[in-house]
C-alpha cells in the first residue's frame, strides 16, 4: 500500500492509494449519491414497508411514513418513481461494474489480502478492545493517523465490501419479477419480495450511517490531506510521524 516518496518541506509524501482505488472510489461516490437519491424517490412513491411475499396499502405494514408526519399524498408529491427507477437502475449498473472492477483488480493484486484482511493477532478480544479505546480517545494521539488501516477499519471495509454490498445487490434484484422468475431462490433467501424491499431500505439507512462515520473519520484525520490523497494518491506525513 505504501512506498516512500520524495521528501518536501517539513515532512514526506507517502504513496497511499493506487490509481485503481482512486478512480473506483470517485465513480462509486457518484453512483452511490444517485442510487441514494433515486432510491428515496422510489420509496416516497410508496412510503410503506412490509414483511413477507405481499404488501400493499391496507396490508399490515412494519413501517409507515405517515406515522412520522408525512402523509401519503405529501410523500407522493416529493417522490417520482419514473425518474427514480430510470436513475436507480442506471447507476446500479455503474455501481456494479465499478465494484466488480475494483474487487477483481484488488483481489488479483493482493491488496485485500495484504492490507485489509485482519491478521489473527489483531482479532483477539484484548487487541480489539484496546484499539477501540484508543480510537475513541479525544484528542487523538498523532501517531494514530498513520497510513496503515486499523483493525476496526479493516473489519468495517471487509464487511462493507464482501457482505453488505452483495446483500444490497441481492435484496435489490429479489424485487424484480423478471429475475425472480428465473432465480426464485432469491425469494426464499429473504423470505419474500417485500422482506427484500424492507431489508434494502434498512440497508440504505445503514449506508448513510456508514458514510457519516466515514466522513467524520476523514475530518478527524485531516480533510485536506486525506481528500487530496484520494485524488493524487499521495498522503503527506509531517516530520516526526511514522
Amino acid at each position, binding site marked *: 500500500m505504501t512506498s516512500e516518496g520524495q521528501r518536501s518541506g517539513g515532512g514526506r509524501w507517502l504513496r497511499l492509494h493506487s490509481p485503481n482505488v482512486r478512480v473506483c472510489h470517485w465513480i462509486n461516490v457518484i453512483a452511490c449519491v444517485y442510487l441514494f437519491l433515486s432510491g428515496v424517490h422510489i420509496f416516497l412513491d410508496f412510503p410503506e414497508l412490509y414483511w413477507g*411475499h*405481499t404488501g*400493499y396499502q391496507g*396490508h399490515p405494514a412494519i413501517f409507515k411514513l405517515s406515522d412520522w408526519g408525512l402523509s401519503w399524498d405529501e410523500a407522493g408529491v416529493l417522490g417520482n418513481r419514473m425518474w427514480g427507477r430510470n436513475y436507480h437502475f442506471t447507476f446500479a449498473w455503474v455501481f456494479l461494474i465499478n465494484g466488480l472492477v475494483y474487487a477483481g483488480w484488488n483481489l*488479483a493484486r493482493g491488496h485485500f489480502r495484504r492490507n485489509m484482511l485482519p491478521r489473527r493477532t489483531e482479532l483477539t478480544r484484548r487487541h480489539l478492545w484496546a484499539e477501540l479505546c484508543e480510537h475513541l480517545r479525544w484528542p487523538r494521539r498523532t501517531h494514530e493517523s498513520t497510513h496503515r488501516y486499523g483493525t476496526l477499519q479493516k473489519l468495517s471495509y471487509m464487511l462493507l465490501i464482501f457482505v453488505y454490498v452483495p446483500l444490497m445487490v441481492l435484496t435489490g434484484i429479489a424485487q424484480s419479477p423478471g429475475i425472480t422468475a*428465473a432465480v426464485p431462490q432469491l425469494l426464499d433467501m429473504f423470505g419474500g419480495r417485500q422482506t427484500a424491499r424492507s431489508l434494502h431500505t434498512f440497508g440504505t439507512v445503514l449506508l448513510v450511517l456508514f458514510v457519516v462515520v466515514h466522513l467524520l473519520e476523514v475530518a478527524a484525520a485531516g480533510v485536506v490531506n486525506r481528500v487530496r490523497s484520494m485524488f493524487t494518491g499521495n498522503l503527506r506525513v509531517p516530520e516526526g510521524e511514522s
Partner: protein
Amino acid sequence: MSQRISRRVLLGGIPGLGGLLLTGCSRDMFVPPQVRGGLVGAADMLTMGTNRFLQRDQPLAREYQRSDISHPFPTWAQTNPPDEEYQRLRRGGFTEWRLPVSGLVERPVTLSLDDIKRLPARTQITAHVCEQGWSAIGEWTGPQLQRVLEEAGGAGPSARYVVFHTYDGWYESIDMFEVAHPQTILAYRLNGEELPMGNGAPLRLRVERQCGYKNVKFLKSIEVVDSVAGYGKGAGGISADYGFHWFAGV
C-alpha cells in the same frame, strides 16, 4: 487463482451464449423497440439483456398456494374508465363486448367474451409486482395469449410485437418472446370470480415476469405488428412514451 476463476466463468458462459444463438433468439429479445440515449439507454439494454439471458428457457414465475392469496386484491390507477362505450358495455354485462384480433395474423377475428371463455384456460396463482413497490397474490384464469392468436390463425412470420389497446385510453406492447411464455394469459377471472371492474373487467393482460404497468386492464383490441413506431410517440406503450423503460422486468 484469478486465472482459474476467469477460465471457469468463460467455459461456463460459452454454452449459454451458444444455446442462445442456436435457439434462434432475435435482437428483439434483448433490445427494446426504441432505445433511449445516453447512460440510461445503455443501462436499459443491460437490464433487459440480463433478464432475457436468465429467462432464455422461459421459466415460469413462481406460482403460490390458494392460502397465499391477498384478500381483497388491491386496485390501482383507473378503476372505472369513464369511456362512454365502456360504460354501455358494462351496463350490459359485457355481452356486447368484442375483442378484435387484427394485424399480422392469418385471418383477423373478433371474439366475444364467451368465445374467449370457451378456449382452454390456464389458472395461475401469481404475485402482481407493481413498479411502485407493492405486491399482491391473486389467482388469474384465462386463455394463453398464444392460444387467442391461434383463433386468428396465429401470428405471421414477420410479427414482432403484440399491441394492446384499452378502454382507459392506454396502449401497451410486448414482444413475441413474452407472447410465447406459458403464463402470458388474458384473464377474465380473479380468485375464481368474474374479473372485478377495478381489476380490469372484462379482460386484462397478465405478463407475470414484468411489473404492474405492463399488465394492462380493460382490453379493447389486440394488434399483431412488426413495428410499434406508428403508435403514440413510438416507444411501445403509454408508460414508455411518458418515460418509463419499455421492458418492465425490474
